[in-house]
């Protein structure tokens, strides 16, 4: 796997972590909770390498 692609996977994992963290600490806005999950979806699929 090329170095650049590896870095992108690391960035994806970092972003998933941040989105989950934000999802967990969000207390009131249902809208924001949903958006965190939707934004995380393609990153999760990428990291799992589902084709």
């Amino acid at each position, binding site marked *: 796997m090329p170095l*650049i*692609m590896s870095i*992108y996977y690391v960035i994806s994992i970092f972003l998933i972590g941040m989105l989950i963290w934000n*999802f967990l600490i969000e*207390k009131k806005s*249902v809208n924001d*909770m*949903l958006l965190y*999950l*939707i934004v995380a*979806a393609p990153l999760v*699929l*990428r990291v799992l390498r*589902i*084709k």
Partner: protein
Amino acid sequence: MSREWKIKSVLLVIVIVVMVVAGFQLYAHRHYMVPIVAGPGVTKVVKLSKYCDGLKGTAADTNVFFLEGKEEGGKMLVIANTHSNEPAAGLSAFVFVENAIVDKGTLIVIPQFNNSGGRNTRAGDGYPLYFEIPTDWGNKKFRMGNRDASPLDQWPDPDAYIHYPDKQLLSYLDIRNTNRTWPGRPDGSLMEKVTYAAMQILREEKVDMALDMHGAETMFPVTNCIVAPDKSMKIAVLTSLTVKAKEKFANHVEPSPLGFRGLSHREIGDYSDTLPFLVEAPMPFLDQPTGPKTTKLLLDGKDPFLLSLSQKGRLFVPYDEEGWPMDKRVGQHCSVALELINQFSKRNPDRAMEIHNIPKYAEVVENGIGHYYHDPGKADKAAMYYE
């Protein structure tokens, strides 16, 4: 469980259900194989990876059909589904592979040039995943693909795509577009390997002409035309004039721009001895101001918004209540390909080609494309291939 966690749990379940349902649909689309019945003219079928090792075992590898005549002559490479969301090209290539008989020379056909793009979709534009063509034996189902290769196969995209070898800066997205990665390189991105392999076919097989078939918006000036560089211009102009006079459809000629790199009609001409041509058939489905992107619009090309724009003189093609049906688009591709061969053969008798059993424009319009597809259920298994 607190109210907050109840809400979070429900949201999580909804998102996972949507992901799984959509994921299964996209997985089925990506892995759906379209049968193609190799006709009596097909003499061998190889993989594109034969010409570039880097494609072996990747989603970009694809079938290359050779239709060799008994007599030596010129050679033509036909490339379809460079952009898999312009399916008239692929449908025409299927007609060639399933029907053409080559008497003199060699016809090489790649029906699914960007194989990864053919297994991708454009979710944001609401593209249908499949469409069906009625045939004499039932409906034949095709995948509707996308313009660019799937990011599942070539990822990540750069911030700006630097074209090789000219170093021109192009849109980041075009690094997955096989009409921006010519002439390619063996150690480049996956799509650069695809175009490099095609360049190797042209060089190793000493191909005389290359035809890249496309579809274009009716609101885009480069539509309903043949695009050609200077070296191919004479044959392109004579082809355009001949089909207009004999077959009664317009297909004007556009010059290949010198300063726009990565395009097949530019780089094939500059980096090989082959004469390149690119044909564009009008495709209302691709226009932006249309109704929903349905399979009906894809196949009949009828749209009230385009009709209104046509009446205001805003389109670059004639457009009326009849739309621009798929049969017309495929018919144009077939007739233009045959006329290019005819014009080339007249000017190069030592490299002439003779082909029969490819329908012309009027025949395709009258009989429908489906008439030229053979029933895979009744075909010899040895003649079956999958795209």
